[in-house]
C-alpha cells in the first residue's frame, strides 16, 4: 500500500508538470485552433534558462533556497513569456490568413529552430542542476514519507493553475480570451483586440511551460536540448485527454496522466511508462475524441 501512495504522490507531482505544459497547448488551440508544436521547446528553454540564472546569480547562497526558487521562477516565466510572444509575432502572425496547415508547418519549423539553437548554445550533452540546492528532507503525511520537493512542485502547479483559472473566469481580460476562443469575429465586434488576446495567450502559455521546465530541472536534476519533445507529447496527450481547448480539462488531464503513468510504471513495468501514456492517447481518441471535459468535436489540425 505504501508503494501505491508513493507512486500516487509522484504521479501528482509529474502530473502537475504535464498540466502546466498542457495549458499552453490548450489555450493556444482554444483561441487559434492551432497546435503550437514549438511549445515543448519553450518548456526546454525554461529549464535551461533556470539553470543559467541559478548558476550566474548565486541566489541560493544569498537569499535561501525557497526565496531563490521563487525569484528564479518569476524570472524564467517572464523571459519565456517574452520568447513566446516573439514566436507568435515571427512564426504565426504573418500566417493569420493562411490555411491552417501552413501554420502547423511553421510551428514544426520553430520547434526545430529552438532545439538546434539550444544545442548550439549549451552543447548537446546533458547538463546537471546543482544537486545540493534544495533541502532533501521528507515530510511525513499520514505515515507516508514524501520528499518535500514533490510537495512543493504539486503545490506550485496547483497555485499557478488556480491563479490562471481565476484570471480566465473572473477578470474582464479573461472573459475576452474566452470570447475570442468561441468566436473571433464576434469578439472583434465587442471591441476586443483579438491580436492582443492572441499575444497574451502566447505569453501565459509559455510562462507556465517555462515554470514547468524549471521544476523538472530541479526535480530530476538534469536537462537536455531534446527533453521538450517527450514532455510536449505527454502534455499534448494530457490536453487531448481533458478535451483540447478546455482549460480545466488540461488541468485534470495532466494530473490524471501523471498518475496513470506513475502507477503503470510501478505495477506493469517501468519500461512501459511512455507506452502507457500513448495508449491512453489512442484510447481516448477512439472512445471519446472530445476528451473528458470537451464538448466540441476536435477539429482537424
Amino acid at each position, binding site marked *: 500500500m505504501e508503494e501505491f501512495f508513493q507512486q500516487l504522490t509522484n504521479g501528482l507531482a509529474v502530473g502537475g508538470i504535464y498540466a502546466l505544459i498542457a495549458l499552453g497547448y490548450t489555450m493556444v488551440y482554444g483561441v487559434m485552433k492551432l497546435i503550437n508544436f514549438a511549445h515543448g521547446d519553450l518548456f526546454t528553454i525554461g529549464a535551461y534558462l533556470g539553470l543559467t540564472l541559478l548558476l550566474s546569480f548565486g541566489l541560493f547562497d544569498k537569499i535561501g533556497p525557497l526565496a531563490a526558487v521563487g525569484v528564479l521562477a518569476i524570472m524564467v516565466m517572464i523571459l519565456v513569456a517574452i520568447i513566446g510572444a516573439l514566436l507568435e509575432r515571427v512564426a504565426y502572425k504573418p500566417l493569420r490568413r493562411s490555411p491552417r496547415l501552413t501554420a502547423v508547418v511553421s510551428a514544426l519549423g520553430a520547434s526545430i529552430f529552438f532545439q538546434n539553437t539550444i544545442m548550439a548554445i549549451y552543447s548537446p550533452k546533458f547538463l546537471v542542476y546543482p544537486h545540493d540546492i534544495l533541502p532533501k528532507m521528507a515530510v511525513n503525511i499520514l505515515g507516508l514519507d514524501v520528499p518535500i520537493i514533490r510537495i512543493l512542485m504539486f503545490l506550485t502547479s496547483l497555485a499557478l493553475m488556480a491563479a490562471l483559472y481565476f484570471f480566465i473566469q473572473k477578470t474582464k481580460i479573461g472573459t475576452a480570451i474566452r470570447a475570442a476562443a468561441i468566436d473571433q469575429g464576434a469578439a472583434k*465586434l465587442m471591441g476586443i483586440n483579438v491580436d492582443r488576446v492572441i499575444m497574451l495567450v502566447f505569453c501565459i502559455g509559455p510562462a507556465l511551460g517555462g515554470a514547468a521546465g524549471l521544476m523538472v530541472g530541479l526535480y530530476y536534476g538534469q536537462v537536455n536540448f531534446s527533453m521538450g519533445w517527450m514532455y510536449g507529447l505527454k502534455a499534448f496527450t494530457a490536453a487531448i485527454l481533458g478535451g483540447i481547448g478546455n482549460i480545466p480539462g488540461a488541468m485534470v488531464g495532466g494530473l490524471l496522466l501523471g498518475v496513470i503513468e506513475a502507477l503503470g510504471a510501478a505495477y506493469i513495468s517501468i519500461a512501459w511508462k511512455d507506452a502507457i501514456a500513448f495508449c491512453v492517447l489512442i484510447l481516448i481518441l477512439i472512445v471519446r475524441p472530445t476528451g473528458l471535459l470537451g464538448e466540441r468535436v476536435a477539429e482537424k489540425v
Partner: protein
Amino acid sequence: MLLRIEDLRVNYGNVEALHSISLEVNDGEIVTILGANGAGKSTTLNAISGLMNITGGSIFFQDTALHKLPAHEIVKLKITQSPEGRRVFTTLTVEENLMLGAFTSTNTKRIANSRAWIYELFPRLEERRKQLSGTLSGGEQQMLAIGRALMANPKILLLDEPSLGLAPILVKSIFDTVREINASGVTVILVEQNAKAALKLAHRGYVMEVGNIVLADSATNLLSNEEVQKAYLGGKGH
C-alpha cells in the same frame, strides 16, 4: 450627416462582393437595407464594422475614416453591431455576454446604467442573467445580441436580420424595441429580409442587388414602388 459611404469596394478572397456602393445615414434615422440573399447587405454592415477587406472607396463617420481602422477601434467610436445569426458567446452566461458588449467602456456607473436599461427593454434577459446563453431560445438570443450591442452606448447600431427565424409575434416585439431604441437617440441601420416590416419601421431605405445599390428612397416611397413590391413584398395586393 453621421455616416457616409462612397464608392466602397469589398472583396471576399478574389471575388468582388460590393461594386462601388455609396450610401448616407443621417443622425437619428432608421435606414434599412433590403435585398435578396447574397446581395451584399451583411457585407456592407461588416465593412462598416471593420471586418471586411476593403479594396476601394471610403467610409466616413463624421470626420473619422472608418475604412482605415481595425474593428476594435470602430467599436470605441460607438458603432456596434448585432450580427447575422446572433453569434452570442454560447458557453458564457447572459450577463457575461452583456458585459463583453461594454468591453471598451471603463465607466462602471455608465455600464451599470446601460445594463439596467437593457434589462428594462428585455426583462427576459434579467430573468436568465446567470444562464449560459447557449441555452436561450432563438428569440432570447436575438434580444441578447441586440442588448450586447447596446451596452457600449452606441451612436450607430447595425442590426443584421434581427427577425431571422423568429415567430411573428416576437418579430413585432423586436421591431417595437428597435423603434424605442431609435427614439432614445440611437441611429439604426437595419438589414432585413422581412422588407415590409423593415420599411414600416424605417425612415429611408436602400435596395441592393448583387453587390450594387439599385434604389434609394424614403421608406414610404419604397413601400409603394411597384418593383419593390414585386420583388420583395410579394406583389401588389398581397
